[in-house]
C-alpha cells in the first residue's frame, strides 16, 4: 500500500508585513502553515535576521561581543552599515540613550540619529525605544514624525502607551511592534485593542524573548501557541508575524559572559529554538550566530 503522509490543512494565514520602502523593503510573515512545515504548504518569506545597533556606546558587553564592532561603537551610522556587511537582512536600532534611568537624551536628538541611520543604510530599520512607557511615547512619536514615510518598524508599543504611538505610526506610515509581558491573553488583548484603529498588516508581535535557562520555554510556548491559534484555529486577532528580540537578553546572562564559545552557543541555541517556535524576525547581537542561523534557515545544517 502506498504511504500517504498525514498532512494538515490550515484555516488561517499570518499577515504579510512589509517593512521599509522601495528597493529596501522586505516582507515577513504571510505563511499559512506552521514554522518550517514546507511539506504542508509554501512559506513565501523566510525568517529575517537583524543585528542590533545601539545609539550610544554599549555598557556591560564582553570583549568578544564588542570585537566585531570595535571601530564603529561610537558611530551608529557606521555600526548599522557594518551590520549589513556582516550579513544582516536588516538593522535593529536601540535608542538606549533615551532611557530616563540613564542618559535621558531628548526625543528630537534620538530621532535625528534614526533619520541619519535610515538614510545611510540599504535595509529597513527596526527601532526600539528604551522601554520606558512614558518616554517611549515622546521618543517614538518623534521618530515617526521625523522619518515620515520610511515605513520603519517601531516599538515597543505596550498596553499602557499604544494609543499615541500607534496613532503616530499610522499618521506617518510606519509598522509597530506590539509588546506584551510573556502572557498570551495579554498579547491578544493588546492586538484586539490595536486592531480597532490599526491595520493587521502593519503589526508585529513581540511576546518577549527570554534567554535559554531564564524562561526561554515561556517565550517558546507563547510563540508556538500564537501560531497555532492564528494559523490552525484561524483567530484573526493572532495572525501577525513575530519578532524575537533575543540577542540582548542572552548577552545579559551569566553563562554568556563566562566565555566566548558559551556566549555564542547561548545566543544561537535560544535563536534556533525561537525560530522553530515561529519567530519571523530574530534580533541578534553576534555575527557568528547570525551566520549559523542563516545556514539553518537555508537548510545547510
Amino acid at each position: 500500500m502506498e504511504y500517504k503522509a498525514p498532512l494538515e490543512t490550515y484555516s488561517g494565514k499570518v499577515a504579510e508585513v512589509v517593512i521599509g520602502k522601495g528597493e529596501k523593503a522586505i516582507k515577513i510573515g504571510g505563511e499559512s502553515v506552521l514554522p518550517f512545515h514546507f511539506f504542508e504548504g509554501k512559506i513565501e518569506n523566510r525568517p529575517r535576521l537583524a543585528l542590533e545597533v545601539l545609539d550610544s556606546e554599549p555598557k556591560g558587553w564582553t570583549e568578544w561581543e564588542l570585537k566585531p564592532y570595535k571601530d564603529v561603537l561610537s558611530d551608529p551610522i557606521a555600526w548599522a552599515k557594518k551590520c549589513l556587511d556582516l550579513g544582516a537582512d536588516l538593522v535593529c536600532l536601540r535608542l538606549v540613550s533615551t532611557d530616563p534611568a540613564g542618559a535621558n537624551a531628548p526625543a528630537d536628538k534620538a530621532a535625528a540619529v534614526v533619520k541619519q541611520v535610515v538614510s545611510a543604510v540599504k535595509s529597513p530599520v527596526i527601532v526600539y525605544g528604551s522601554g520606558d512607557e512614558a518616554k517611549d511615547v515622546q521618543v517614538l512619536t518623534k521618530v515617526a514624525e521625523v522619518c515620515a514615510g520610511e515605513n520603519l518598524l517601531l516599538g515597543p508599543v505596550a498596553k499602557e502607551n499604544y494609543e499615541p504611538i500607534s496613532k503616530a505610526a499610522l499618521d506617518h506610515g510606519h509598522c509597530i511592534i506590539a509588546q506584551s509581558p510573556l502572557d498570551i491573553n495579554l498579547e491578544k488583548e493588546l492586538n484586539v485593542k490595536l486592531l480597532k484603529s490599526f491595520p493587521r498588516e502593519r503589526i508585529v508581535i513581540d511576546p518577549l524573548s527570554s534567554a535559554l535557562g531564564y524562561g526561554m520555554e515561556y517565550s517558546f510556548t507563547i510563540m508556538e501557541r500564537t501560531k497555532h491559534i492564528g494559523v490552525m484555529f484561524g483567530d484573526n486577532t493572532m495572525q501577525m508575524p513575530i519578532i524575537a528580540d533575543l540577542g540582548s537578553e542572552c548577552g545579559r546572562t551569566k553563562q554568556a559572559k563566562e566565555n566566548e564559545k558559551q556566549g555564542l552557543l547561548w545566543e544561537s541555541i535560544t535563536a534556533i529554538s525561537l525560530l522553530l517556535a515561529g519567530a519571523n524576525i530574530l534580533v541578534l547581537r553576534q555575527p557568528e550566530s547570525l551566520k549559523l542561523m542563516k545556514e539553518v534557515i537555508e537548510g545547510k545544517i
Partner: protein
Amino acid sequence: MILIGESIHIISKQVSDAVKERNPKVIQELAKTQADSGADYIDLNLGPAKRDPEEVTSWLVNTIQGVTDLPISVDTLNPVAMEAGLKTCKKRPLLNSASGRTDSKELMLPLAKKYNTDVVISVLTDKGCPPDIDSRIESIMDTVTHANELGIPNEDIWVDPIILPVSADQKQVREALEFIGMLADLLPGVKSTVGLSNVSNGTPEELRGILNRTYMVMLGRNGLYSAIADVLDAELVRLNRGELPKIVDLIYKTMDGESINLASLSKQEQDYVKTTKVLMAETLYSHAWLES
C-alpha cells in the same frame, strides 16, 4: 439550580469589620438582601477562622438566623469552627467543604455524619488541585467511597470539581464542565456544586458577571445541581429561573457548535455567544474578548 448566596465572605472588609465589632447589622443586611434576591442558601464563608472559632461561628450563624429561615452553608476549613456552626444551625445545613485531603477526611467528613448534614466534597487532594479530568475523577471516586464507608449516602454529597479562572486556564474550565456532565454516570445519586464566581477571578470587575452567568447556564445544561454565586446579580437569578429562554437557547446552540450569525443578534446576545466560545475554549481568552 439551587443558588447559594456568596456575599457573606470574611475576605470582604465590611464583613471582617462587622465580625471584629460583633456588629450584626451588616451581616443581617447581607443575609436579608440575598434572601430577597432569590438565594436558596446563605453561604457563611469564615476562611480559616483562627481567632475564637467557636464563639465567632455560632454568633454569625445566630445573627443570620435572626433575619432569615434559609439554610446555611457553613464554609470554612477549620473543623472546630465547622462543628460550632453545624451545631448552631436550625435548618439542615450544608457542610462546605470536605475534600480528598487526609486532614479533611479525618476531621471534616465525620462531622457530616455526626450532624446529619449535606456535605460538599471537592476534588482537592494532598497534592492540591488535580491537573486534568482523569485525576479529578480518580480523586472524587476515592473520597466519595470513603464518605460512603463513614455512612454518608451519595444523596447527601455535593461534588465540587473546583473551578479555576478562565483568565488562567481555559482548558480546565472546559474540563470542569465535562466533569459535571459525567457525574451522574460516575456516582449515581450525588449532587454537585461549584464556586461559580471563581471562573471570573482575575477578569476586570465590570466584565465578571457575564462570565459567571454564561458558565452557570452551561454547567446547568450538564446537570449542575447548585452553585455558590452572586445572587445580587439580577440577570443571573432571572436566567436561573428560566426567564431568559432566548439567551439560554443561544448558549446551548453555541455549545453545540451551530453556526450563528452574530450580525443578526443584539449586543447582549452577541456577548453571550462570544462568552460561551471562550468558556468552551474555542477562542483564546483575553480581557477584550467581547471587543473582537
